[in-house]
């Protein structure tokens, strides 16, 4: 069975692509699946994150950096599809890069993380357009927007999430990720929030997100 491929992208920087992709990949790994994360960002945040892990407790997914391959990344990814159950692609925040296009054309699911704030809402429109362009050629591609770094008590955030939820073309995932320090702490120790003591709410959010992702692609 070939690996399911999930691309996490948005040309807007700082919307939490790496946090989301690393948590999907890592959580699937923790659940016993063979999981690979392809880091397409030249900043190599995901690769650095995984490298923070100790030898005794490695990051629960394989993480490789393929940023230099850019739009040719699909050729490399193809070599792994029988070795893994899930392949996550963490895309760079760039409009002019071909990497997201290439990744979307070979993916089963595209996740667009969006911080519920106006500039992110605007940027999300271009991200949705790109995914829809890819969908023309890759008809089985599913596209979902996900609210990330949500401050649930802030009214503008609630309103932005309502707007995201009202989009008839690109559905919003029910699961959302809050703005929590556990999501930053886990990067320093090279794990998912599952490895952060006391991060009960963050873990719950991640598990719900992964459950929902699996329900879409299985």
């Amino acid at each position, binding site marked *: 069975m*070939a690996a399911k491929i999930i691309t996490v992208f948005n040309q*807007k920087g700082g919307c939490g692509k790496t946090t989301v992709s690393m948590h999907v990949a890592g959580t699937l790994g923790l659940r016993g699946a063979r999981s690979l994360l392809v880091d397409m960002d030249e900043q190599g945040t995901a690769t650095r994150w995984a490298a923070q892990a100790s030898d005794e407790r490695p990051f629960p997914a394989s993480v490789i950096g393929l940023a230099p391959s850019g*739009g*040719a990344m*699909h*050729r490399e990814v*193809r070599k792994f*599809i029988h070795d893994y159950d899930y392949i996550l692609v963490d895309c760079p925040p760039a*409009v*002019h*890069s*071909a*990497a*997201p*296009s*290439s990744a*979307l*054309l*070979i993916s089963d699911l595209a996740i667009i993380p969006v911080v519920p*704030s*106006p*500039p992110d*809402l*605007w*940027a999300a*429109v*271009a991200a949705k*357009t*790109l995914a829809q*362009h*890819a969908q023309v*050629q*890759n008809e*089985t591609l599913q596209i979902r927007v996900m609210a990330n770094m949500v401050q649930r008590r*802030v*009214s*503008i955030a609630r309103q932005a999430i309502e707007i995201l939820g009202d989009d008839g073309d690109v559905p919003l995932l029910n699961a959302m990720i809050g703005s929590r320090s556990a999501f930053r702490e886990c990067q320093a120790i090279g794990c998912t929030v599952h490895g952060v003591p006391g991060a009960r709410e963050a873990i719950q959010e991640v598990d719900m997100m992964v459950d929902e992702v699996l329900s879409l692609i299985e």
Partner: protein
Amino acid sequence: MATKLKSLKAGMLAGMAAEKTRSDAIDRFARAEAAISQHPNGLLQSPRPVPPVTAFSAESESETVAIEGRTLISIPIAQLHDNPFNARRIYDPAVVQERAASIATHGQKTPGLAAPDPARPGHYILIDGHYRKRALASAGKLEMECFVESDLSDLDFYRLSFLLNEQRSDQSALDNAMAWRQLLDEGKVQKEEEICELTGMSAGTVNKTLALLKLPESVLAVMRERPSEIGIATGYELTLYYKVAGEDRTRDLVTRVMNDGLSSREVESIRKQAQEGKPRKVKEISRQYKIRTESGQLLGTIKEWDSGRLMLDVQLTDRNAREDLLEVLKARFGLDKTLL
């Protein structure tokens, strides 16, 4: 037997589906290869090198007219997005219909103002003309004529929208409150003082305006029907009234303001009445007459007010003198008879 056949069939179908997705997965990579070779910079980029962007060439099917350094173009309404920092927040459907009727007869008279959307090439954010946009859409028009500004920050989007609405004295206090709250919540401005600078309004006005949002939702809902009826003075009185009178009575009062056109002074006196239980007495000044003995010793005072009140306060240590005075006073008011 039937169930077995069914499960066999399901098995075959599943196998076919698996086969399909397998070949599909292989196809995908070939397809990606083909697509990427045509679009070396990603799917959203044009496959061919584009001539330098002479904004809105014939290619974009838009008429271009340059006036005073600004460009006037027709923008498809589908690509023209509301200003998220628009100063106006509330749109009266009746006004939209009215303007739609006018547009249907006379066409769009006044261009709107828009800026290119930094995140979406080919899309625009409307700065001014949100009513016109709604009216055009309602009149079935697909395009809106707009002047185009460029290089705007988030605050510029609000500032321009505020200025243009303000020039037409077109936005209500409630519009302002909602827009300013958003600027503060999003950290576009840090303090209320910055809103004063942005809008040129006094700190008191800014503070009173923002206080409107402390009114309960049901009251705000009534205000939203015709927000221009509620000025900032009336609005502020309503927030004070709400503190003493509660939600239901405030909703009644705001309804009266809308229907009967109560002035802010009238609302103020209603609010004061509610705060004190009764109208505050006008402080009156009395005229005072000092009562002295022949030797000049002060015995007391007579005070007289314009309202008709009279007060006698006198100390007569001599019992006879006291009873004499009492007799006179009793006789004056007919009290001597009732005692009998």
